[in-house]
């Protein structure tokens, strides 16, 4: 696929070398200090991701879905949300989760198989992961409809307003559910931002299997704007997402953002990308690394220096250690706990099944 070029159809504010681009209708006006905070997030997230990948290799996780290369897309968009906004991830949004204050160890329970999506029980506006592609986009639209019904949209005091943002991939855009989410969002002018990380692949399938034209253009046909942004450019992602979130909060309805990026790693730790793409291609994308780019820029403006980088590196190291240790010590569940988790009002039959299970386990203990 030919690379998109900066311009009205492709928002880029920081080029791959780390230079601020020409003024654009989407400008990023935050301070370099804020950008440094975002860079710190990206560095920590990359470490978290690497550590989880390593834990999977050691057999401590059943699976991991690396986000390597998508840090700017995730941090830039997550940092465009604020307190009352609702964040609805797919399954690769570990970086978004981090920004939403989710403990990485809670994420690991899912991939270690000790739990499902344990973070849901702690206060945070971060929805559980969804593994059936596209389903969560409808949930997000419903949640956004609720914000509207609750009077949290279009208030004159902008601080009383909120919106939802939902994440999904390029592959997901082919699912009926995602397109129905577009229909419902448009029909109810739901305050929702559809954030599509086009990382060029759905497992082995290049985006060209899903669409012959840029994905952001899908939105116009449903009656709301679509924007393609350089997903490896934190400034651009943040600027565009802030604009779209504010638009939604104001009551102007949905936006589709296509963050054009690349899944540098495997689809998951079970995947083998050498089967379907070239090393050259991977290499070309590594040259557009979102972290390098922002680091170069901030080093250039002297917003950060080597000692700042060293201290984040140290922080990353201790995060990794916490994850390593925490992972192996995640509490092991027992089946008996689950019998009362499927229903608010557990049917008698499940209590009987639990009793059977416990009696069976007990007999087993006794006899062998």
């Amino acid at each position, binding site marked *: 696929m030919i690379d998109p070029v900066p311009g009205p159809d492709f928002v880029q504010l920081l080029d791959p070398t780390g230079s601020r681009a020409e003024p654009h209708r989407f400008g990023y006006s935050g301070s370099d200090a804020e950008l440094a905070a975002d860079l710190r997030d990206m560095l920590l997230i990359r470490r978290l991701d690497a550590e989880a990948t390593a834990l999977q290799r050691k057999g401590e996780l059943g699976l991991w879905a690396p986000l390597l290369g998508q840090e700017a897309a995730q941090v830039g968009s997550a940092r465009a949300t604020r307190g009352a906004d609702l964040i609805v991830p797919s399954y690769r949004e570990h970086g978004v989760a981090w920004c939403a204050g989710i403990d990485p160890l809670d994420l690991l329970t899912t991939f270690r198989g000790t739990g499902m999506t344990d973070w849901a*029980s702690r206060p945070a506006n971060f929805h*559980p992961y969804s593994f059936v592609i596209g389903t969560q986009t*409808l949930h997000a639209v*419903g*949640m956004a409809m609720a914000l509207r019904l609750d009077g949290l949209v279009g208030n004159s005091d902008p601080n009383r307003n909120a919106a939802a943002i939902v994440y999904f991939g390029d592959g997901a855009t082919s699912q009926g559910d995602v397109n*129905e989410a577009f229909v419902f969002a448009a*029909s109810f002018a739901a305050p929702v931002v559809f954030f599509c990380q086009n990382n060029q692949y759905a497992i082995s399938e290049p985006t060209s299997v899903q669409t012959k034209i840029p994905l952001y253009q899908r939105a116009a046909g449903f009656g709301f704007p679509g924007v393609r942004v350089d997903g490896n450019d934190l400034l651009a992602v943040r600027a565009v997402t802030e604009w779209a979130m504010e638009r939604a909060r104001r009551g102007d309805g949905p936006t589709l953002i296509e963050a054009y990026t690349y899944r540098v790693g495997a689809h998951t730790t079970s995947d083998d990308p050498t089967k379907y793409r070239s090393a050259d291609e991977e290499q070309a994308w590594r040259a557009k690394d979102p972290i390098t780019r922002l680091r170069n820029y901030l080093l250039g403006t002297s917003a950060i220096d080597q000692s700042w980088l060293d201290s984040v590196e140290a922080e990353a190291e201790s995060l990794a250690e916490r994850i390593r240790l925490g992972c192996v010590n995640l509490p092991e569940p027992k089946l008996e706990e689950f019998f009362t988790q499927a229903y*608010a*009002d557990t049917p008698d039959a499940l209590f009987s099944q639990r009793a059977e299970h416990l009696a069976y386990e007990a007999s087993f203990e006794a006899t062998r």
Partner: protein
Amino acid sequence: MTTLTLAKALNAGLRQALADDPKVLLFGEDIGALGGVFRVTEGLQAEFGNNRVIDAPLAESGIVGTAIGLALRGYRPVVEIQFDGFVFPAFDQLVSQVSRLRFRTAGALSVPLVVRIPYGGGIGAIEHHGESPEAYFAHTPGLKVVTCASAADGYWMLQQAISSDDPVIFLEPKRRYQDKAEVDFSQFPAPLHSARLARPGTDATLLAYGPMVRTCLEAAAVAATEGHQLEVLDLRTLAPLDDAAIFASVRRTGRAIVVHEAAGTLGMGAEIAARIQAECFYELAAPTLRVTAYDLPYPPSKVEQSFLPDLDRVLDAVDRSMNW
């Protein structure tokens, strides 16, 4: 005490639920100005406004999926699926999402959603308008499934389903919408997940639900003239089943006949028969018999009367059971 059709009783139940709890919302196709194709939501949009009774775009997965989002934000959406045959586009959201969000989050999230589905055949309709999809849902852990057979149950069970914190598939026997019965608005209703002894008897138990309850009561009336006292149990709750009521009745009579409109294979009768043989093994005078539709797609309406169980096929099964 008022005499109401089932459709009007359901309408009254919805009105009461909307009045009682501002978080209750109705959501579906044609439920607003039209009042639903069966008029079950008639007048409700005029009364409660179009933020409470909402016409949805024509997409069942979208309806159920967005209703999940509404439910997660504290609403209690009552979704209408226009006909039984049109619930399948929403099947993924029901089976993979509605049924599992609580489990997935270790109880942290609730999806208090009611999915109303007019179901069953016998009304001379075209394809997809006479389906009985209950077994698909009853096989799905995390869902509750109930069905009413009378106006009183329609009124009360619907409100109980709406106030349940668990997602409930609420099946409405469309061929009985115009059946009238007394509804006592002051009576304290039986628990949602309990069966109802519709007619006591001693010789055999007819286990039925929804549209077939009336058929079984008619059969029992005829059987009585022939000297057989049939007990009729209106199951009401299909998931969970009211095992205690089922076993108690079958132990009393020694004979069980399950009657439903869905295909026999893996219909509710399969589960009920399997449970009865396991629990009442030494107490049965005959195997549990099943009177069901044949294992075919729903046929054209001119033959639906012989496709679906009717009074005579029920009595035929009673005879077979008695002569076992």
